[in-house]
């Protein structure tokens, strides 16, 4: 026995996750109506391709729009004292960011002002610490740990399936210290990436 034809379930779930609630029924209903029209006219495979195409086109727009109208975003007020990041968490993040900081900031200063801080820093911190700073795995590992700690501290992503609808909730916690550390980690990571591209890829072009 043939199963009744229906739109791709995964595409529907993805759309349900980002659609603003008041539009969800009408939007999914319209897609399903046209899906059945296309399936009758041009076959099931064509209808499924069309459904996926519509889904992939709509997902970025709908996600941005849902954020814009506050359907996905929920900014919570700073939580109870016990939920705040303890000071040692911030100190730990800074420690993990230190190798990247010691590479990127003197490098930037050298490019902007010509001051040879990397060499001076090398003399200052001594050969043991210098080799530690020069180890890319320590720098990238530190960045990764700091990014993870601070992302977890500020973002709470929840996926709820109520049967009728699927909701994706991003709860951004207002924790200035963590947001600053997160921004710093992203900045350092991007700086290193741009440096690596400029040093290794551009000369080959």
């Amino acid at each position, binding site marked *: 026995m043939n199963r009744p034809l*229906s*739109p791709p379930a995964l595409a529907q779930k993805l759309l349900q996750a980002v659609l*603003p609630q*008041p*539009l969800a*029924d*009408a*939007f*999914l*209903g*319209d*897609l*399903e*109506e*046209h899906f*059945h029209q296309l399936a009758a006219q041009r076959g099931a495979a064509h209808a499924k391709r069309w459904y996926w195409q*519509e889904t992939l*086109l*709509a997902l970025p*727009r*709908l996600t941005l*729009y849902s954020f814009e*109208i506050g359907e996905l975003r929920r900014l919570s007020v700073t939580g109870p004292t016990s939920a705040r990041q303890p000071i040692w968490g911030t100190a730990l993040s800074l420690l993990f960011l230190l190798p990247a900081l010691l590479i990127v900031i003197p490098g930037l200063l050298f490019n902007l002002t010509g001051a040879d801080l990397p060499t001076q820093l090398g003399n200052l911190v001594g050969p043991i610490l210098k080799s530690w700073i020069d180890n890319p795995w320590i720098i990238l590992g530190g960045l990764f740990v700091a990014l993870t700690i601070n992302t977890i501290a500020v973002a709470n992503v929840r996926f709820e399936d109520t049967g009728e609808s699927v909701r994706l909730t991003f709860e951004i916690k207002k924790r200035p210290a963590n947001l600053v550390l997160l921004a710093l980690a992203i900045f350092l990571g991007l700086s290193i990436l741009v440096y690596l591209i400029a040093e290794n890829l551009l000369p080959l072009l």
Partner: protein
Amino acid sequence: MKVISRTEEMILLAVHALAPQAYGLAVGLHLKKLTGKPWSVGATYIPLDRLEKAGLLASSEGNPTAQRGGRSKRFYRLTSKGLKALAELRKMNEALWAAGPDFGAS
């Protein structure tokens, strides 16, 4: 009055043309037919919702049908504010085109 975008203008005109059967899919197919360009359902619903929030459109729900997976259609109609916005837009377009190139002259 905030000047509405070209897409929003086209959607308002399509809703007017299709009334009282103007719903998202029909609006998109109407515009696709007239412009010859593809209109995704997502590209139709976001402006429809913005225009409704701005008070230029109003909507009401139809009955759920099996063809739509048991979901209802949302029918849109122009409000008096929407009609007024279209009239002002037309006046503005005519004023702009009055000083535009004359394509009829050879």
